[in-house]
């Protein structure tokens, strides 16, 4: 546990000086949010539009997807940066030399990565609501648990594959390529929960997504903890 905290504290403290992860994630997320909301007709995300075609989604239904797609891509950039910090000066090799459990390394980095992601969301989501003309009360505080389970899931995958792709030749390309299909359930789940919260003011029937996301978190946290040693060793 001491190791886990030491790793997480090291990453958070390094980032508080370098500021290369969270601000970059935030700016990137805002660019995407700006572009995506700008593309829609004014007020489209607010008004309860009747369903125009059978089977088609009302515009408000895609609000969540716009938001979480932006967050996902910002997250991938952040995870890549965070893993690269261990590669610079081969500092990560110092971790390999130390007599610590690889699962603890994974857990420490996971805590830091989830922290960066949550911090980014805490700024990006209110700004998104501002752009999309959504009243603050429509999403907060209900979205907080969504942020938590989604961040943990994305970070579970991103921390594992962020480290794994560091030694690949096209690492900045490989990371989104691998994480996108694997994280799809998280993106869909968080999107559906966000849209439902916005439309119905409660989760209702869609509460089942929380279960799916929690299962996802448990599965990938376990996988990451068990296989982290295989991706960091020579």
């Amino acid at each position, binding site marked *: 546990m001491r*190791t886990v905290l030491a790793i997480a504290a090291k990453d958070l*403290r*390094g980032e508080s*000086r370098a500021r290369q992860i969270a601000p970059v994630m935030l700016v990137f997320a805002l660019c995407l949010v700006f572009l995506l909301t700008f593309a829609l007709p004014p007020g489209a995300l607010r008004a309860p539009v009747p369903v125009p075609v059978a089977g088609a989604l009302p515009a408000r239904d895609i609000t969540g997807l716009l938001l979480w797609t932006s967050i996902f891509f910002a997250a991938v950039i952040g995870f890549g940066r965070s893993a690269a910090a261990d590669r610079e000066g081969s500092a990560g*090799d110092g971790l*390999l030399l*130390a*007599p610590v459990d690889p699962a603890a390394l994974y857990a420490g980095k996971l805590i830091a990565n989830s922290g960066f992601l949550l911090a980014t969301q805490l700024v990006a989501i209110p700004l998104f609501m501002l752009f999309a003309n959504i009243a603050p009360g429509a999403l907060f505080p209900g979205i907080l648990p969504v942020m938590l389970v989604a961040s943990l899931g994305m970070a579970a995958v991103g921390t594992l594959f962020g480290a794994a792709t560091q030694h690949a030749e096209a690492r900045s390309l490989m990371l989104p390529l691998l994480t996108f299909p694997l994280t799809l359930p998280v993106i869909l789940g968080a999107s559906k929960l966000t849209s439902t919260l916005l439309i119905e003011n409660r989760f209702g029937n869609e509460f089942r997504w929380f279960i799916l996301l929690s299962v996802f978190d448990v599965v990938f946290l376990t996988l990451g903890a068990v296989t982290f040693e295989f991706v960091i060793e020579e």
Partner: protein
Amino acid sequence: MIALDGVGKKFGTVRALSNITLEITPGTTVGLLGPNGSGKSTLLKLAAGLLKPTSGTVTVGGKAPRDAKAQIGYLGHEPFLYRYLSAEENLNFYADLYRVDRTKVPVLLEEVGLQAKGSALVRTFSRGESQRLGLARAMLHDPEVLLLDEPFSGLDDASAGRLPQLIARPGRTTLLSTHDLPRAHDVADRLIHLSGGQLA
């Protein structure tokens, strides 16, 4: 203390080491000599457990290097330090990983002559300062086995001259690579020559 038995290491099709058998007596300091590309760094990394041999076995104190991590201190070409942490924070971090009391950190900083720069970020350090801090990191947990890859590089004469007494501890086994023959004679009890990945 450090034993290599028929060790070979290939990187893809390139063979870095072939069929090295070597035994280093506990408590001795051995200098590893050889030109660039002769396999010195590879041999040290194998002993540190950072690389795995393609053939043969490496043991440190009778165990595989990865099971002897707490007994091994290693300093490579890179200091393994975080650029955005201060010298003191770096050592505190490694102290936590090695479960060493943090009170050792100021003592070590003084030993390597960096007491005045404890709170400076490592990214502001010169090559020699990084090297000395890297050495402090490698010795933080008072390892029985010390593996140093070109420890004199980047050090000024004064620091380089202090290095032998700095790394000396009773009973410690040290393997260090260098191409500086006089310094190697100074510090080592025995010299080993590597050439083209083989013992010469």
